[in-house]
Every structure is written in structure tokens, then in C-alpha cells.
């Protein structure tokens, strides 16, 4: 690492990454417990995927574009998205920039260069390829990262996107967050080859990394981004982690799997990060405890604050279908209200 930064810079960068991971973890715990209390409708936990996302985020510049999926809270937090934006979306309140229209976990953060999240998996991938094409055509110094799960690699969207990105030699990183499960289907039943190997068949560069280790992931992501930025074409990163939580708050994994990696165990990305940072002498247990309680305090405080915001006004339901509201929708608006 040291070739990129001087020691103080490196310490700052690594601690900021760790702090994002902690904040994400606390955020995750809060939303899951709030869902159980009926204060949130639904949520897809991100626990276990913090290092994957933060490791890749660390390799990006501000202007780079991210076409993310529903499980990318740590990615968003690390890129500076305030948790208020995430909370407003999850609550679907009147301050949500998407006006409470989407189910929780379907974030919007345009000013931070994230695309609006859809539910149908992998549908973001071809769009990301289009974005990369636009970047190339306009000769902009940017790359696109698009994220998706292991299950999503079975879709026609994945195939189309990988093929097109390679054919047009585009500046794009495909980040497959392999958490080893697609709801109840284990990755071995999803595909017969390792995901990173699929890249070769399309003429892209493929690489596999331990997605539980943010420094390993950062290293691989940095190379991938450099490659894409310098016109050498797309990279598929398979970052292997583990979905520590259920698929969503509606899911009961005890129906289909026995416990794998658990929170706090030695493969937990946060535990690995702490070990790495201690080895580098960048952090102490005391600092860790302080950071954790501070993150928890922030999340609790913001949650209570955002919860008080009233829902969007009913008439907003009819906006944004078209730029100009059609006469049909105008009439329907009049009838509903």
C-alpha cells in the first residue's frame, strides 16, 4: 500500500474506510431491529459485505459513476452519502428525494453519482454499460462501477452487459458481490464455473478477491480501475464474502442453510479490518470502542430525527410519470384526492 500514500495519508484513508464499515454495521443493526419493532417496513441487510464495497469505493474518484444494487449501503456511506438520505428512503418519508415511491433498500443519491436502484436484479448492468459508452464517447476521465450479487450472474442482463462492455472496450468495472447465496440458492447451484472466470469468455479481464478483507479488495479494485481508466477495457471482480444476515427481513434462512460466517467471528469483515489496522499500528481497542459507540449514537439519533418526518403528500403520487402530466393522469389525480 505504502507506494500510494505517505504514512499519514494511508492512515487517514484506512481509518476512514474502517469508520464507514462501522457506521454501516451500526446502521444495519438499527434498521433490522427497527423493522422487528414495526418502525420500518422491509430491509435487505448488508452485514458481511462491508469490506467488499468499501474496498472498491476506496479505489474510485469522486466523479466516477456507480450503478449499484439494493445491498450497497456501505458503498454509499463510504462515498459520502449522508445516512439521512438512506433513512429517508427506507422510511419513505416526505423528505425522501424519490418521494417515498420505492420500497426500502431502493436508494437514490444522484448528487453522489449513484444511480436509482431497481428491484429486478441485474437490470442496472446494461445501463451501466451505456453510461460507460457515453464516458468513452465524450472522452471523460471517469469509470463506471456496477454491482450485483452472485445470483444475478444467471440473468440475460449480465450476459448482455458483459458482452457489450467487452465488444466496445468500455471503462467499466463489474463488481460481483458474491455473498454465496441468492435467497435460498447456494452459489454452487447457481453456476458451474467460478464467476470471475466468466470474464474470459467475453474477452474481459476477470479477477477474484477475498471480499471480507477491505485491503485485499482495495488492492484488486485499484488495479481494475487503473486498467479501465487507461482504456484497457472492462474488468469483472468477483469479491467473495458471505451473507451473514437473512436475504431480507422477510426471509428465514433456517429453512435452507446452517450457520456459516457469524458476526464477530474471525472472517467477519469488521474483525479482519480491525486486525489489519492493529497490525499497522493505526488503531487501538480503545479507539475502536469509541468509534463504535459514536457510530451507534449517530445512527440512533438520526433515526429518531428522521422518523418524525411526515409522509409525502398524496398528490405527489401523480408527479414524474411524464415530464408534463397527461390529461388522463390529471383527471385521475382529481378523482383520488
Amino acid at each position, binding site marked *: 500500500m505504502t507506494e500510494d500514500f505517505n504514512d499519514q495519508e494511508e492512515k487517514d484513508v484506512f481509518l476512514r474506510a474502517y469508520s464507514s464499515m462501522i457506521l454501516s454495521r451500526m446502521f444495519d443493526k438499527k434498521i433490522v431491529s427497527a423493522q422487528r419493532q414495526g418502525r420500518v417496513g422491509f430491509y435487505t441487510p448488508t452485514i458481511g459485505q462491508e469490506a467488499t464495497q468499501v474496498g472498491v469505493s476506496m479505489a474510485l474518484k469522486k466523479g466516477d459513476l456507480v450503478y449499484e444494487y439494493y445491498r450497497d449501503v456501505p458503498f454509499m456511506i463510504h462515498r459520502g452519502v449522508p445516512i439521512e438520505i438512506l433513512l429517508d428512503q427506507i422510511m419513505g418519508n416526505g423528505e425522501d428525494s424519490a418521494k417515498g*415511491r*420505492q420500497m426500502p433498500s431502493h436508494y437514490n443519491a444522484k448528487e453522489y453519482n449513484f444511480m436509482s436502484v431497481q428491484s429486478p436484479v441485474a437490470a442496472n448492468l446494461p445501463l451501466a454499460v451505456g453510461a460507460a459508452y457515453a464516458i468513452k464517447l465524450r472522452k471523460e476521465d471517469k469509470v463506471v462501477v456496477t454491482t450485483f450479487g452472485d445470483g444475478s450472474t444467471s440473468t440475460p442482463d449480465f450476459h448482455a452487459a458483459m458482452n457489450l462492455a467487452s465488444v466496445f472496450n468500455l471503462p467499466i468495472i463489474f463488481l460481483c458481490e458474491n455473498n454465496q447465496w441468492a435467497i435460498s440458492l447456494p452459489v454452487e447451484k447457481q453456476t458451474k464455473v467460478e464467476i470471475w472466470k466468466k470474464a474470459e469468455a467475453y474477452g474481459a479481464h476477470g479477477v477474484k478477491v477475498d471480499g471480507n478483507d477491505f485491503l485485499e479488495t482495495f488492492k484488486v479494485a485499484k488495479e481494475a480501475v487503473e486498467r479501465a481508466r487507461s482504456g484497457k477495457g472492462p474488468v469483472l471482480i468477483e469479491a467473495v464474502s458471505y451473507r451473514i444476515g437473512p436475504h431480507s427481513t422477510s426471509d428465514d434462512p433456517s*429453512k435452507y442453510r446452517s450457520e456459516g460466517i457469524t458476526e464477530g467471528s474471525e472472517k467477519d469483515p469488521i474483525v479482519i479490518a480491525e486486525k489489519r489496522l492493529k497490525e499497522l499500528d493505526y488503531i487501538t481497542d480503545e479507539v475502536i470502542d469509541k468509534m463504535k459507540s459514536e457510530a451507534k449514537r449517530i445512527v440512533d439519533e438520526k433515526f429518531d430525527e428522521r422518523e418524525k418526518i411526515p409522509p409525502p403528500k398524496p398528490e405527489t403520487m401523480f408527479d414524474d410519470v411524464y415530464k408534463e402530466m397527461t390529461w388522463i393522469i390529471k383527471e385521475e389525480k382529481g378523482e383520488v384526492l
Partner: protein
Amino acid sequence: MTSRQLNMVQAINSTLDFALSKNDSVVLLGEDIGRDGGVFRVTEGLQAKYGAERVIDMPLVELGIVGMAIGMALNGLKPIPEIQFQDFIFTAFDQLVNQAAKLRYRSGGQYNVPMILRTPYGGGIKGGLYHSQSGEAYFAHTAGLTVISPSNAYDAKGLLISSLEYEDPIIFLEPKKLYRAAKMEVPDEEYKIPIGKASIVREGDDLTIITYGSMVPLVNSAVEKNKVNAEIIDLRTIMPYDGEAILQSVKKTGRAMIVHEAPRTLGMGSEISAFLAERAIDYLMAPILRVTGPDTPFPYRLEDYYMPNERKIMKAVGKLMEFR
């Protein structure tokens, strides 16, 4: 004759169980339907009973699920694919519209596709844009597809049993809001509800309300609570809809309204209105009205404003009855 109190999930589950036990060529395929038992638990226990080759946990590819099911149907199997949410059917739309629906026609009747595609549809569960859609009109608009939607556990079983013998592709739309809404007596034995036949849920003289699927209990309770003398028709089969039953009722009542939660424009309400305008105009004492979802995507937080409700239904009833 024995029977049990079942909700719709249990009724469909026990009918699938019956189908698998009775006919070796019945195969279930879909995402998370086996080990997990389905995200709505409709296929619970079936993989354990019939094995992973007949209750297949599929990789995440709707296009593949539907395409494979069509191929199975062409080759002696009776596939029952599940699409986890109807909202996710669209990557398989080509397989449905250009393969399943057209194979009989394009082969001059040599091939046919006896498959039953089951999928939960509709709102009312806080699912937002992509877990709430009612896409029946897309399917009904496609010549060659048969579209069915049960409104209760009893009908779900009877319609599914009829579907097992049907020789063309069926889109079996399960109103997820009603999955566990009510229990009712469901006979243990086999019985059929004919495809293409509506049911008169309630007889009445003043107006006819035509509806189906998720909206039936809502319409029923609005009518009963407000003591409206309405005839309620539950289509049960959306395509081909039971024109005869609709016509007979409207000729008697002289007033008609259609209720569905799908968007209004070019929804089933439009088709039925046109049908009535063509054939019953002399009997009509008021315009035909539609109570439907608006022509917007399905919102999350404002879902209650989107869905038809008692207030909207009664407003339309008032308008119909007061029309001079």
C-alpha cells in the same frame, strides 16, 4: 365428503401436492420453491416429498424458467413454473408472447404448450413499484394465452385442477394480498371450476359490478356494508372472460362498473366496457364506470391512495345510481 379450513396458500399447496402425486409428468420449477418452500411458502414441503428433480430450485433467470417450461411442455411434461413476483416476468416476456402463445398457431396446431405459469401479483403488501404490479392486461392482450385469477381458496383449488387438464399455456395470477387473508371450507376431494366461467358472487338488481382476483372481497364488503343491491361478478378467468355472464347480468340491472387494481388505461375494464357498449347499449341506464388503479407506477408509501377502496367504489356506485 371431508373438507378442511384452508387459506389460499394452503389450498394451492395441497392442490400442487395432489397434482404431483397423481401425475408423474407434473414438474414444478422456480426460484426458491424447493428447499425454502417459496417466498410465500406456497410450495412448502413439496421438494422433500417429490424430490429435487420434480420440484426444481432454479438459478435466477426468468427467461430460462419460462423457456425451459415451454420445452418441457412440448415434450410430454406438465410444467408448473413459478415466477416469484409477477413484476419479474418481463425478461421472460418474449418466451411467453412469441413462443408459448404462438406455438400452436405457428405450427398449424401440431404443437401445444400445456403449462401453468403461477405467479403472485398485485398490491396491498407495501411492495412498492416492483412487488405490486397487476399485469393481467399484458397477458390478456396476447392471443394464445389464457389468464386466470382466483379470489379465494376454494376457487384457487378448483381452477388449478381444471388447469391441469388444459392444453394451452395458462397465466395463473395469485392475488398475494389474499394469500392468507381468509380461511374457508375446501373439500379434500378433487373438484373442478370450469375455465372461462365467471361466478355470481352475489345477486342483485340495481347494478352489476364486474371484478376479479384481489378486488373481489373488497367489492363484496363495500356492497354488503352499504347495503347496495348490486350483482357482483367474479370473472375467475380473465381471458377468455365470460361475456355471457356479464351480458346477462347487465341486461337485468342496466348499470355496470368494473373494478380492478391494475392501471385504468387499456386495462380489463376498457375491454369489458367496449364489449358492453357494443352489445348492451340499449339496456344501459348510465355510463359504464371503472374503479381502478391510476395510470402511474405503483407507489410504496402512498399505496393506500393508489389502491381502489370502499370510498372510491361507493362514489362510483352513487354516480351510477344517481345518473339521469
